[in-house]
Each structure stands twice: as C-alpha cells, then as structure tokens.
C-alpha cells in the first residue's frame, strides 16, 4: 500500500471540511454564497457582494487571530513529537494569562523590557502547568490526557481565585482587573487602522523558529523525537526518557502560556477572571494535527484556522451562525484522525487509474501490431 504525504491528507481533509460546510449551509436553508463571501472577505478584505470595497482591517484581523493559535499549535505539536497529547492548553493559557497580567500590573518596568518580562513569566507559569502531567506520565505512567484535563479546570479556578485575591479588580465591572500598565502593552503595528494587530506576531514567528531549531537542530530535540518514536529504544540508546517527557510537556506548556500573554498584552489589556475556556488550546490541537506537528505546517494550519476564527464576525454579518467554523474544524480533525481510510481510498482510486492505463496500453499494442 502506498503511503501519502501529510500534506496530501491535510489538503483533502480541509477540502472535505469546506465542502461539508457548504452542504450544511444549503441544508439548513442558508446561502452558501454568503459563506464564501464571508471567508473571502476575511482573507482578502474584498467584499464579493459589493465589488470595489476593500478594507485592510480584515486581513490584519486574520493575522491577529492566527497568532495565539499558532502558539498553542506549537504547544500541542511539541508534545506530540515526544509522543504526548497535550490537551491541557486551556489551563496553560489561563496560567500564562494570569502570570502576564500580574507582572504587567504589579511591576513597573521600562517599555520593551516590560512585555518581554511578562511573556517570560507567562512561559514559566505555562511550563509549571505542564510540569505535573509530564512528570506523572514519565515517572508513574499516568495517562497525560486525563491529568491535563484536570489541570485545565484546576487552572481556571485557581487563577480566578489568584486574580481576585492578589490583583486589583476593576470596581466598575468586578469581572476583570484594572488595565495593565501602558509600558507592558504590545502596541499596534499599524496605528492608522482599527485592527488590533500588534507586535505579538513577532512572538509567534520567534516561537516557530525556536520550535524548528529545538526539534530539528539540537541533540535534545533529536532525543525528544526518538522518545516519541520508541520509548524503549530511546532508553536503550541511553537517552533520559523520563526527563525528556517531563521537559517536553513543560516546554509545550510554555508555548501555551506565551499564547496567553500575547492575548492579554495585545488584545485584552487587562487581567481576566476566567469562568469558561476560550478554546484556544483545543484550536491548537487542530492546528498541530493538520500541520503534521511540523514548524511550517503549524504556521500554515494556524493561518487557516485563524481565518475561520476571524471570519466569525463576517459570518454573523451574513446571517450564518459562526459555529460553522467549529464544525469545519471538527471534520478536519476527524479526517486527519482517520487518515488510514483516506489512504485506502486514494489507493483504490489509483489502482483503478493504473488498470485503465494498462488496458489502454494493451489496446495501443494491438493496433501497432495490426
């Protein structure tokens, strides 16, 4: 049986997801052309139903939405390369958000340095939230998925308590902290637009590079990958498997924590008291799976899912429930999960094609004989 590249599988999954979305809009009595318009508008800024209108804000918002999920995608991908499933992104983001907000409010540091310190604090908090699942997986062989989910809820309640207890709460709403210091904010890149697109995108790009460098270019990354391929073989080769698993989960947590910091410093600009999850961590799972847990793949998949997120406003504008993007996402994850079926299908199609070609050739041979 022929194997297919991850790119082929991902493209088929994405295409199927989109086709399904169009069918669903049709089935539920909506106009699929509206869905297309919303997606194109979020991507290019052009409105298909009003040719000539162009708004760069949409494009910037697309990139803005891609930044956090590229980071959570890196988080899931990093753990995945070591054979771990990091479903704890939500808790790690919340820990990171809270740490970033705390540093951004309580400490007075010069600009440029301040956001960097905030981001480092967030990375540390995220890593701390990844420590327990990694450690327990490594040394006690406890399923990291369950611990991660427990850490998500623990993180949400713990951070909500922490924020209420130690950070100054905005007396007007009682639902968030006061604004963070101006020096800690990630400023807008293009101040002339209304888009909140900020310098946080640099963080994502550095993250992509760091991911690629650690995984592909260092001995440590090599031993992480070896652990992911075959734990016992890696142990036999003298690699410290337990330490690798723990560290990998911590680094994954750090990536998610940074995503939280970028959201707080760039978009919200105040500390949040979380009562639900934002699903950035779950988006990260889709991004990592579709991106094949590769740096460049995560970048492209992050842009794709960022588009779906960014399109939600436009979708509601055209009267299509924005949850359709979640449906597309679910189908894509599902198809990536059953890539075995896709491979089987592609093989069948190829076999038919080859058979046809063979038959044609035979016919050709006959004619030449005559």
């Amino acid at each position, binding site marked *: 049986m022929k194997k297919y590249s991850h790119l082929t599988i991902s493209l088929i999954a994405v295409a199927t997801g989109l086709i399904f979305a169009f069918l669903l809009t049709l089935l539920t009595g909506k106009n699929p052309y509206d869905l297309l318009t919303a997606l194109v508008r979020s991507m290019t800024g052009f409105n298909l139903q009003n040719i000539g209108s162009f708004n760069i804000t949409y494009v910037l918002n697309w990139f803005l939405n891609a930044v956090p999920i590229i980071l959570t995608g890196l988080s899931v991908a990093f753990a995945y390369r070591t054979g771990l499933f990091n479903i704890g992104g939500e808790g790690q983001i919340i820990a990171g958000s809270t740490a970033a907000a705390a540093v951004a409010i309580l400490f007075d540091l010069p600009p440029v340095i301040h956001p960097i310190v905030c981001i480092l604090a967030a990375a540390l908090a995220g890593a701390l939230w990844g420590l327990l699942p990694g450690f327990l997986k490594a040394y*006690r062989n406890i399923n990291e998925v*369950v611990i991660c989910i*427990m850490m998500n809820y*623990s993180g949400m309640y713990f951070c909500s308590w922490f924020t209420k207890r130690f950070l100054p709460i905005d007396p007007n709403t009682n639902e968030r902290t006061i604004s963070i210091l101006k020096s800690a904010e990630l400023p807008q890149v293009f101040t002339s637009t209304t888009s909140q697109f900020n310098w946080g995108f640099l963080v994502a790009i550095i993250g992509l590079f760091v991911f690629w460098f650690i995984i592909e270019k260092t001995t440590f990354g090599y031993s992480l990958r070896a652990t992911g391929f075959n734990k016992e073989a890696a142990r036999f080769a003298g690699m410290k498997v337990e330490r690798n698993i723990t560290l990998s989960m911590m680094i994954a947590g750090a990536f998610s924590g940074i995503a939280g910091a970028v959201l707080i410093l760039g978009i919200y600009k105040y500390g949040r008291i979380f009562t639900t999850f934002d699903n950035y961590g779950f988006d990260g799972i889709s991004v990592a799976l579709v991106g094949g847990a590769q740096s460049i793949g995560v970048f492209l998949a992050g842009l794709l899912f960022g588009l779906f997120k960014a399109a939600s406003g436009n979708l509601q504008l055209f009267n299509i429930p924005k*949850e359709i993007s979640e449906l597309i996402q679910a189908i894509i994850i599902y198809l990536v999960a059953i890539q075995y079926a896709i491979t089987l299908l592609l093989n069948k199609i190829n076999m038919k094609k080859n058979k046809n070609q063979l038959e044609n050739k035979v016919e050709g041979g006959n004619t030449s004989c005559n």
Partner: protein
Amino acid sequence: MQLIYQMFPLALMSAVPLILGALGGLYSERCGIVNIAIDGTMQIGAFVACITIIFCERAGISNTIIPWFALLTAILSGMAFIAIHGVASIHFRADQTISGTALNVLAGGLTIYLCQILFNGQKQTDYYAMTSSFTKINVPILQDIPFIGPILFKNAYITTYIAFFLVFATWYIVYKTPFGLRLRSCGEFPQASASMGVNVTKTRWAGLMFSGALSGLAGAVLIMTTSSYYYIGTVHGLGFVAIATLIFGQWNPWGVLAGGIFFGFAQVLGYFSSSIPLLSGLPVEFYSIFPYIVTILVLILFSGKSAAPKASGEIYDSGKR
C-alpha cells in the same frame, strides 16, 4: 443533621449525570475504546432532550409522556453520535483520543449551530416549562423510614433510581453474563479473544453503543433535572468529570457509584460551605477545584496497580501477537 437532609438530595441530583456518564465510559473502556467524547455525547443528549421537550410541548403532547420520550430520543441520538467515533476507532485505526476530540468540538459547534437555525438566531434554545420535565417526588411509605427516608426518598427525581438500577444492571452485564466476559476480554487482550472465536469488531460496537446510550442519557438527565433550556455551558465539562469518576471508581460499577456520589457532594459543598463552621472561611473556588485535585490524587495513589483495561486505546490489529 438538618444540613445533611438538605445536602443529600442535591448531591444525589448532581451525582446522577456523572454516574451515568461514567457508566458510559466504563462500557467503552472495558471493550477497549478510549472515549473522551463523553462530554460531547452528553451535549448532544442534553440538546436533543431539550428540543424534544420543546417541540412536544408545542405539539400539545401530554406531559406524562414527554419526559420519557425525551430520554428515548437522547439515548438514540447518543448512540448515533458515538457511532461516528466507532467508525473511526473500530474500522479505520484512528487515534481514539484525536477522534474523541473531534467529536467534542463537533458537539459544541453542532448544537449551537442548530439552536440558531431552530430558534431565530439565538445562541440557546427556548425555555420549556418545568412541568414538562421530571418533577421531584416523594416515595410513599419509604420516605417515612428514619434517616434513610429523608435523604434517599424525599425530594428525589425518578432518574436517580434509574441510575441506581443501571449501576446494578451494568455490574450484572459486565461481570455475570457471557457478553460481559467477552466485552472485558476485548478490552484486555483482543487478539486472545479473537482466537477464542469472539468477534472483536461486533463486541466493540456493542460496547460503544451502550456507551453512547448511557452518555446521551446522562446529558438528558442533566438538563432535565437542573435546567430548562440548553446553552453552550449546559454540560460545562461534566463529561470529563465523568471520566474522572470512572477512574476514581477504578473501572468498576460500584466504584463508579461511590465516585459519583463523592463528586456530587464535592459539587454541592460550595453552596453549603457558609453554614459549615469549619469550611466557611475558604474561598468558593476551593470547592470547585476540589473534585479535580482529588482525581489527580486518586490517580497518583492507584498508579501502581491501575485496574484500567490493558488494551484500552490500542488500535486492534488482528495480526499482532
């Protein structure tokens, strides 16, 4: 004492969806399939039960039938929904955690999408009258037994007794019938059961269907005892707590019952903390966090001798020895 009388019925009420969800997880894990889609299935069950009630109300159907009919549709929808997971994990060698994640995302998106289609762009369903759902009952005669009467048979929902019965039924099916033995063998060592003539594919499908039915039921019971409309936060991660309950109960129905009641108490403890002198000083978050921390501790405690089915989550390859 008065406090226990007040707390116990509430704790039981919150325990029931967890027990049912955990029993659902028990069937699928016992047959060798990791099912983290319990949360999603509960959402589907809750949503379907809710819209069944609403549309039956509008059609003017008598409200003695409506709740039972809602339970039935929820069970069927749960089975249909989990079948998606079955196709992936039984036939197409999918990573079961990833497929389950897809289902969880799908459930959240699908239910709210349909809410907006069915209810004029609202992000939630319309309300239904409490009378079209189950109401609290007092069991005659039994409620007069001292101590046990007030805590078990007063102000209780009939669904609580259904759950108790299902715990017993599950224990009987899984441990006392040939089907249960096959189910468990498929979760421990499917190749060995195949060599004894057990059809692994069929057995796993059966286990998964039980799982979907129970998780759908869990969602229906949740919404019908605690709410009168569906929105995205109806299930609020209880499916994951149900998985925790399953682990806490060490994959055993009686353990699940104990775990469910324990987590039920943990959930309602927050409401009553102010009247318990020892606990009144603690912040509310402490009570919310409590079940999750306990689960982690239980996992650490049992990690050496975990009773988890050995082949759970493994892709079944009949050629593997």
